[in-house]
């Protein structure tokens, strides 16, 4: 039987891979997509509408699950979805926590949905403050792609005219809650912006998808598909085109090359049979998420590419950046003590944000370069976890829990790390996963610039709380563990110089013309913004560029 040659093999079905599949199939390319795990069944796998008392362990999970859980979303509600079998290792001195979803759609099934565009201030950061490199693209060039993505997925927000936050095409914003107006008043007094977040949540029906019903349990998956996910928005259309073959439980192992060192296809392991298979294509798109994509390239060694495919620069796996996450302040709002409960937690609390306000006019105004954003959170949540700040027991204890129910607030910082030689991914020389594929090894430490943002953020949020009339209850002792944000970037950076960067400005690898990268690994650095909408915009651009190249070939 002659071997079938697809137009494009796409590794991954998350934001980057999903957009590539969607774009390529619509343009008529025959696509074979490989996904490392199974398809989810929203009816069985999404337990978001279950009350805690309908869950065996009330949502806390079995003791075993709690011991092996890899983070707050790996709980009884989304049990069985997070990846535990594909191991990674950490270098001495590194701590790294990681929730990976290998199911079809990847993390778009559960993402936080904040969707701010990157800006010219981000793309030209190096020119402004002298550190590292500019992006090889301008905002003007990317803006139309952001607009198209916003139309596809639906983003709710307002026009805000912030220098670091270009405005887009928005659905009506989420409404401010009581806590937002109170914190907004305090923020105005201390000069911090407090605005509706850009959130990919359908505040009204959009593009054939039903509007949100504001039940509030978004991070357990959405059963009505009222926020963007690739299985909800992109894959059905691609499958309808007849151009997509989606292979599930197909764990990509390495890129295959032809006699000229060009990409010929992908070798993958079928996780059910543990057998290795090969699939061939005229072009290959890698979109397995930042670290996994680097791992695949580094594991693709051949006589042409002794250090991993498309790695003549030696930069594959280098330049790993992440967002520092952590609670910069907690408190409660006495104004709301004893007030009736209010549906505050309607979107898992990304209703509002405090977009970057530092180093905007003068890039060297603060003791750190670049800037961070903060997400406020609070009000009536499900579980009164603040109970431990109330002493005693009995009627008073019970009454105080009820009195405080509408009042808790906290702030969560999103601060980018800067590129550093200390932070990278390589292949562990000794450890392999259960399928025999060498594991990724993570080398990571917080840099001083990011920890200066953390210190600055703690002070700013404490000031904001005081100005809001809140009771300040302190900050987290330390930031969350690296890896928490799931916003890794930079391991396959884009840039014009083939000696310094893995891909060109279109996400096409410099070394291998038919190999493209469609995830956050191409981003030269991490900004104060989340990554998904930018992955979508850059993947759209790369996919159209790839399609044009296919047509010309």
């Amino acid at each position, binding site marked *: 039987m002659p071997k079938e040659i697809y137009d494009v093999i796409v590794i991954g079905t998350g934001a980057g891979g999903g957009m590539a599949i969607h774009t390529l199939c619509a343009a008529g390319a025959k696509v074979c997509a490989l996904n490392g795990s199974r398809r989810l069944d929203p009816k069985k796998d999404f337990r978001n509408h279950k009350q805690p008392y309908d869950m065996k362990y009330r949502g806390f999970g079995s003791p075993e699950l709690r011991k092996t859980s890899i983070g707050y979303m790996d709980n009884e509600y989304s049990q069985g979805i997070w990846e535990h079998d594909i191991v990674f290792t950490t270098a001495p001195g590194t701590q790294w926590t990681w929730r990976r979803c290998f199911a079809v759609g990847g993390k778009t099934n559960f993402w936080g949905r904040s969707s701010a565009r990157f800006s010219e201030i981000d793309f030209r950061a190096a020119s402004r403050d002298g550190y590292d490199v500019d992006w090889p693209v301008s905002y003007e060039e990317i803006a139309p792609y952001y607009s198209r993505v916003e139309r596809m997925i639906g983003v709710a927000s307002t026009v805000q005219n912030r220098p670091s936050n270009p405005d887009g095409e928005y659905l009506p914003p989420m409404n401010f809650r009581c806590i937002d107006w109170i914190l907004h008043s305090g923020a105005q007094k201390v000069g911090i912006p407090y605005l509706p977040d850009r959130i990919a949540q359908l505040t009204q029906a959009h593009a054939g998808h039903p509007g949100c019903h504001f039940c509030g349990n978004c991070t357990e998956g959405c059963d009505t598909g009222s926020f963007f996910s690739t299985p909800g928005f992109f894959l059905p259309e691609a499958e309808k085109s007849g151009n997509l073959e989606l292979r599930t439980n197909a764990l990509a192992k390495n890129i295959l090359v032809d006699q000229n060192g060009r990409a010929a296809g992908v070798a993958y392991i079928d996780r059910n049979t543990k057998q290795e298979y090969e699939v061939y294509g005229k072009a290959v798109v890698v979109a397995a998420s930042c670290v996994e994509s680097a791992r695949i390239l580094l594991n693709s060694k051949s006589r042409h590419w002794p250090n991993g495919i498309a790695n003549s620069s030696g930069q594959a796996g280098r330049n790993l950046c992440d967002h520092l996450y952590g609670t910069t302040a907690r408190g409660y709002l006495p104004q709301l003590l004893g007030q009736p409960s209010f549906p505050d937690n309607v979107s898992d609390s990304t209703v509002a944000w405090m977009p970057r306000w530092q180093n905007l006019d003068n890039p060297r105004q603060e003791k750190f370069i670049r800037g961070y954003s903060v997400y406020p959170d609070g009000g009536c949540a499900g579980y009164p976890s603040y109970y*431990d700040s109330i002493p005693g027991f009995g009627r008073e204890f019970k009454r105080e829990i009820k009195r405080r129910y509408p009042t808790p607030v906290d702030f969560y910082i999103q601060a980018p790390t800067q590129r550093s030689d200390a932070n990278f991914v390589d292949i562990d020389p000794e450890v392999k996963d259960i399928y025999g594929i060498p594991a990724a090894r993570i080398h990571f430490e917080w840099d001083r610039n990011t920890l200066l943002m953390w210190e600055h953020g703690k002070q700013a949020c404490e000031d904001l709380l005081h100005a809001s009339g809140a009771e300040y209850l302190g900050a987290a002792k330390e930031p969350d563990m690296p890896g928490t944000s799931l916003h890794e970037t930079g391991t396959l950076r884009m840039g014009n110089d083939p000696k310094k960067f893995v891909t060109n400005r279109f996400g096409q690898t410099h070394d291998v013309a038919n190999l493209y990268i469609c995830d956050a690994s191409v981003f030269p650095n991490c900004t104060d913004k989340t990554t998904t909408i930018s992955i979508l915009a850059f993947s759209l651009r790369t996919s159209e560029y790839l399609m044009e190249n296919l047509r010309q070939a």
Partner: protein
Amino acid sequence: MLAKVAVMGQFPGFSRWVCAAEHVHESSQPRPSSYHPQFFTAAEYATIDELSELIIPADESPGAREAGVAEFIDFMTASDSEIQYPFRTGLTTLDASAIQKYGSSFVNLREAQQIELLSSMTNDDFFKLIREYTVMGYYTSRIGLEELNYPGLRIYSQSPACPHKGDPEHKHLPPPRF
């Protein structure tokens, strides 16, 4: 409804709640057989039940007993070896201390004595443990969520907006209800 009750009846803390619901409609029914603890002895279980009700008592709303908290704690303890020793030792110590101070085991003390004893141990690990699990069990039960009027997992036609127009700082709210 029956199917729902049957399903919920499998989960900890529900035999009581299901009974309570049945009583509303069929008050002539005899009280169904009591819960058989999976981990605790009958005496330990009675103490857990007593402690949970002291921590979250019935007042205008039902307390921990009505919410089946002891059942939840028994279930969680039965499935988690790490908390079995602390719970068991804590309960035995509590009784020893009750006998030492008042000459009787904890469940047999008068309520004032129980409160006095419990008040003297609020910094103890065992108190923190039983309080934590009581809060966990109560506020994840239907009764506990109704006590807080938990507003999530409902369907709203638009994103809920602050109802206090013209008062962004919330300085002129109606007097606290609680």
